[in-house]
């Protein structure tokens, strides 16, 4: 492992900051010393989120966005790189993760609301766990807090004694949000929290998330593949492709003036905007092989502006906080 840049390069005002984050699955050596293949899920990722901000991470399946989310909350350990929250490190190379300490400050909302609730536990049991193990509350405090939590996510308190299967998707997702809020975290990582929901219910959950952020001054990392949702909820957006951020900008800038050709392709692929889809029906949407990432830009094979330079070296993310792009030939 090479020397990593120290935290000094990051500004103090950054609430959550990630630098040089790498995650490989597999790899290492077998018992007889043969090298095992490694899947490069996240490749040298860096981003930061200000306090109270909503950062959207968009990208297609397999781009590594969920892996980033899991590393942020400590469910997966990074292969290398740093994650800092409010100036103190959450994950450092070579040090074990203190999951409980982490869980007090940064929490996670799962994609599938029903699969993230244990079918054999009541909502009361599910919501009590973080209060006992993270907040060490006594019985009385727990009762008050449970009522408070249910009120915060607009659910009736008598739902506490029910089992998950008795709830609809939207209600179950609100329970998922309540569980994340129970620990009073500063940051919520939301991994596709509305993609399993119907649009009418999706709107309820998105509005709830907006309200909660204002009410508790929360910071969100919002992972989604739905560009409409991201546009309406997020302050800033990072576009991921094949384990890297290819473009990041303020939401309005990114949507009105995308510079990376992949971002352009994503925006042009959204159906029903009235524009004729510019993409043809050719099948060239294959991602590169994650076992053998290409040396150059991962998007080069699909990119209309690709040159030899793009195929040989991978462009760095360059630009300002307001708009940065990893491309040698950005769109004007």
């Amino acid at each position, binding site marked *: 492992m090479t020397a990593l840049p120290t935290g000094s390069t990051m500004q103090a005002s950054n609430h959550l900051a990630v630098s040089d984050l790498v995650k490989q699955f597999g790899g290492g050596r077998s018992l007889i010393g043969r090298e095992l293949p490694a899947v490069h899920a996240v490749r040298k990722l860096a981003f930061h989120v200000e306090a109270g901000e909503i950062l959207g991470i968009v990208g*297609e*399946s397999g781009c590594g966005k969920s892996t980033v989310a899991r590393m942020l*909350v400590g*469910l997966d350990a990074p292969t290398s790189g740093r994650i800092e929250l409010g100036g103190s490190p959450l994950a450092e190379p070579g040090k074990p993760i203190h*999951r*409980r300490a982490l*869980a007090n400050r940064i929490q*996670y909302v*799962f*994609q*599938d609301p029903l*699969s*993230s*609730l*244990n*079918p*054999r*536990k009541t909502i009361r049991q599910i919501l009590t766990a*973080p209060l006992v*193990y*993270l907040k060490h509350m006594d019985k009385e405090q727990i009762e008050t807090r449970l009522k408070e939590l249910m009120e915060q996510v607009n659910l009736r308190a008598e739902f506490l004694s029910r089992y998950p299967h*008795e*709830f*609809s998707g939207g209600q179950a997702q609100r329970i998922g949000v309540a569980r*994340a809020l*129970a*620990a009073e975290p500063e940051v919520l990582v939301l991994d596709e929290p509305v993609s399993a929901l*119907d*649009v*009418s219910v*999706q*709107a*309820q959950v*998105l*509005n709830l998330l907006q309200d909660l952020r204002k009410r508790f001054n929360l910071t969100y990392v919002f992972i989604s*593949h*739905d*560009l*409409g*949702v991201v*546009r*309406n*909820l997020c302050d800033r957006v990072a576009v991921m492709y094949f384990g890297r951020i290819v473009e990041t900008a303020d*939401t309005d800038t990114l*949507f009105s003036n995308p510079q990376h050709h992949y971002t352009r*392709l994503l925006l042009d692929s*959204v*159906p*029903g*905007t*009235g524009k004729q*889809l510019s*993409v*043809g*029906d*050719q*099948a*060239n*949407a294959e*991602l590169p092989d994650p076992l053998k990432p290409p040396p150059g830009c991962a998007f080069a094979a699909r990119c209309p502006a690709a040159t030899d330079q793009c195929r040989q070296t991978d462009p760095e993310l360059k630009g300002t906080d307001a708009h940065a792009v990893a491309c040698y030939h950005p769109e004007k």
Partner: protein
Amino acid sequence: MTTNAQAPLLSRLFGRRHSRTSPLALLVRNRLAAAGLVVLCLVVFIALITPWLPLPDPNATQPSDRLIPPFTTGHWLGTDQLGRDILSRLLWGTRVSLVVGIAATLVAALIGSTIGIVAGYFGKRVDSTLMRGIDMMMAFPYILLALAIVAVLGPGLLNALYAIAIVNIPFFARNVRGVTVTLRNREFVDAALLSGKNHFLILVTEILPNVLPVIVITMSTTVGWMILETAGLSFLGLGAQPPQADLGSMLGEGRRLISTAPFVSTVPGVMIFILVMSINLLGDGIRDALDPRLKAGALRRPAARTRTSVEARQASQYEQRGVLDVRALRTEFHLDNQVHRAVNGPTFSIEAGECLGIIGESGSGKSVTAMSLLGLVASPPGMIMGGQVNYRDTNLLGISDNDLRRYRGGELAYIFQDPLSTLHPLFTVGDQLVEAMRSHYAISYTDAWKKAVTLLEEVRIPNAANRAHSYPHQLSGGMRQRVSIAMALANEPKLIIADEPTTALDVTVQAQILALLNRLRDDKGASLMFITHDFGVVRQVCHRVAVMYAGEIVEIGPVEEILAQPAHPYTRRLISCVPDVERKTGKLEEIPGLPPQVNNLPEGCKFADRCDMVADQCRQAPIELKTMNERHQARCIFAKEVV
């Protein structure tokens, strides 16, 4: 199309608020299991009260009363070669066998499940170490291992118990590990970690309650086997030692007298049979009641075609509009004495070369409508109660199974949401295309293969000649969906029914597939029925759209007109729920509440409870479709005011 593919659909419809039948009720409903339960309870009860019964001492010998035949006063089952009362020995022996069998099961369950749950949860090295140990135990022939263990420990009932428990550990370990591995990857385990629980707490409070049914199933199916093994060891003289009676040793002692006094060995033999048989019947019943795979309907064989009421089959013919003309279709699911009315009379037609979109939220009945057209709804529990599906002046609900099969995948073809579950994993995509063609036309394999490659080229699969040799898992999601489309095109369909064909795909791939479908529809002049929940997709591919809510069409008309001027409050609010990718709207509009349950639909407007314009008359009677103009109708009494 199998029940498995429909399982998610059914669970979407009924899963969430459908109360489960209790396992006990399921058990009692199974007659054999109930009989087993009764017999077993009887045996256990007698074994329990044996000490208080007026029986002679089972070990008291009486040489003068040797081998008295059964049904003699004082010795109802006779006496053995030492003059001991067989009835008394039988009851005391049953006690011993039961206790040893059950105790061995508990010990094996405890140790085996612990190993399985730990191996499955922690995985990696822990898993390989523990499971390799289990594999080694399984490498020995089963009874030999038990014999070897008893040989080392010395004969005796307790040692036999140990031996039997040990040899049965692998069964529990393997079953429990398998379940734990799948549970480990469920998100609620991650959620528990984030709630601050440590691994031990997660194992005990999160995983164990979910594994318990499997442990109970394994116990119920092995306890009979364990009693047999105890008897086996005792029969060989390695278990119960004289003079103590257990069923195996009684059998062993009676063996020598089988020709002179057969009842001495028959009586314990019959008892073993009764005991093990009742336990096995009960065990099978418990497994059927608890096993989630069986509960999901794996054993339910749906009919090749949805059951259709006589009324629907014999509906009189009338002049048909368009290629497909559906009238007042009604499909219901009959489950647990409840009627779930999934499809409540949608009426629509599709013109040649037209694309009709069906849009609705989950549970609105759009998929069931599509599957009812060709009788693909699983039956039981599905049933088409009424209506007509007219194609080429024939009511498809009334034709013979053979005729229906010709239409399926022929002139009427389906594309489903998840191509990975609709393509067969063990055949190459080329072979599957060939099969699709050869089941409809007499065509040689080589010709069909050539045509398959052409089809793959038509759906723009690069390097089609080689890709035809690929298996579905070797292709990406977008490629697989292209193969499904090629398969639908194989027999020159007049109508393609696409059920959320792009929902599982990424947005860039979706754009390509939509472009492909548009081009194919233009080139081939086929009609398209496109089911989706996404207004953007509707706008992209459809000419007209039908909005479904609670099994009814609430609005139908040209896409642009409905998007610009929705006449039904539901349509209007559904459209404004969708976050706009082109501008930031601030607070999103939401629809409060939930759709009505399909087993308890209101009499009047089904949207009334969530509607902001609701009036008394909305709830009084079913609302009729109101004509806005020639092509546009809406099911709302305020339709004209809304626009």
